[in-house]
């Protein structure tokens, strides 16, 4: 590793969780999720008349037109697409030191990835329990969102540890969180 990148590794860590090698795969998964969710949302918005379902016959249609899918003003897949878009955006913004230069984006990233994954799992549970049906692409989307949780959390841990060190040094958590210039470099 180049010398100028060594300071990007959080203290006490063996690697930098904010490096591109760590982040880009998650962004890639988010884009896959975005593509799936967008396709499903377009079906729910009647842009497509049919939905691709290789295993469970009419089940996908049943799930995607269910009462649960219409619980909010916009179709649930559209909400999922927005979630994946936020994930991808929050994954790409900032440099390789963002765990300390802009903790807010790392926290937004973690919060976007975590709950989105858990909502996906809830929807997976509801498919067989409420509707006795399975939707292949919905399951794929859920798998994608669950796979993203683990790799996003290490970066959040690095940011939280940094904010903890700043707090112990009596530096304003608010300023540290938003990455104010005046607090940069005060704590490593």
């Amino acid at each position, binding site marked *: 590793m180049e010398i100028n990148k060594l300071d990007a590794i959080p203290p*006490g860590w063996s690697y930098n969780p904010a490096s591109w090698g760590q982040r880009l795969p998650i962004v890639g998964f988010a884009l896959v999720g975005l593509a799936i969710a967008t396709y499903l949302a377009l079906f729910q918005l009647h842009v497509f008349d049919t939905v691709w379902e290789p295993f469970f016959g009419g089940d996908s249609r049943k799930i995607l037109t269910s009462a649960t899918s219409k619980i909010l003003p916009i179709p649930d897949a559209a909400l999922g697409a927005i979630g994946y878009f936020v994930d991808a955006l929050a994954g790409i913004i900032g440099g390789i030191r963002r765990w300390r230069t802009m903790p807010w984006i790392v926290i937004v990233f973690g919060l976007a990835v975590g709950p989105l994954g858990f909502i996906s799992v809830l929807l997976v*549970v509801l498919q*067989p*329990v409420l509707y006795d049906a399975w939707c292949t692409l919905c399951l794929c989307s859920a798998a994608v969102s669950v796979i993203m*949780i*683990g790799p996003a959390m290490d970066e959040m841990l690095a940011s939280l*540890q940094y904010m903890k060190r700043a707090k112990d040094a009596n530096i304003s958590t608010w300023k540290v969180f938003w990455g104010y210039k005046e607090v940069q470099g005060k704590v490593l």
Partner: protein
Amino acid sequence: MASSAILGYASAKTIPDNEHIVGPIIATFAIISWWEATRVLRLYNVPLAVWLLLAPWVLGYDHSLATANSMIVGALVLGLSFVKGKIEDSYGGGWASLLKSDSVHAKEAQKRGKR
């Protein structure tokens, strides 16, 4: 998740429902545990595994194949949840470090500051 359809007790309502709820949650915690920084989530599967061992009696399963399935899967998940696996990287003291001041990352940051 699929056992009721495969083992042929999909028509019983309580058993498949229980499995359809517990299955995805166990899978989720297991997948999140693939990564070292979140390996601790494997332990969240311990209570779920214990529930699988108890469920046939608590819910009164009337299907022996379903009972056997629940016991075997429960025992496997319980046993495998305690396998920590290799931790090859270091994480500044991990999640527990957020609650103490004298942590690995704090000490290391001080050392670096003096250089």
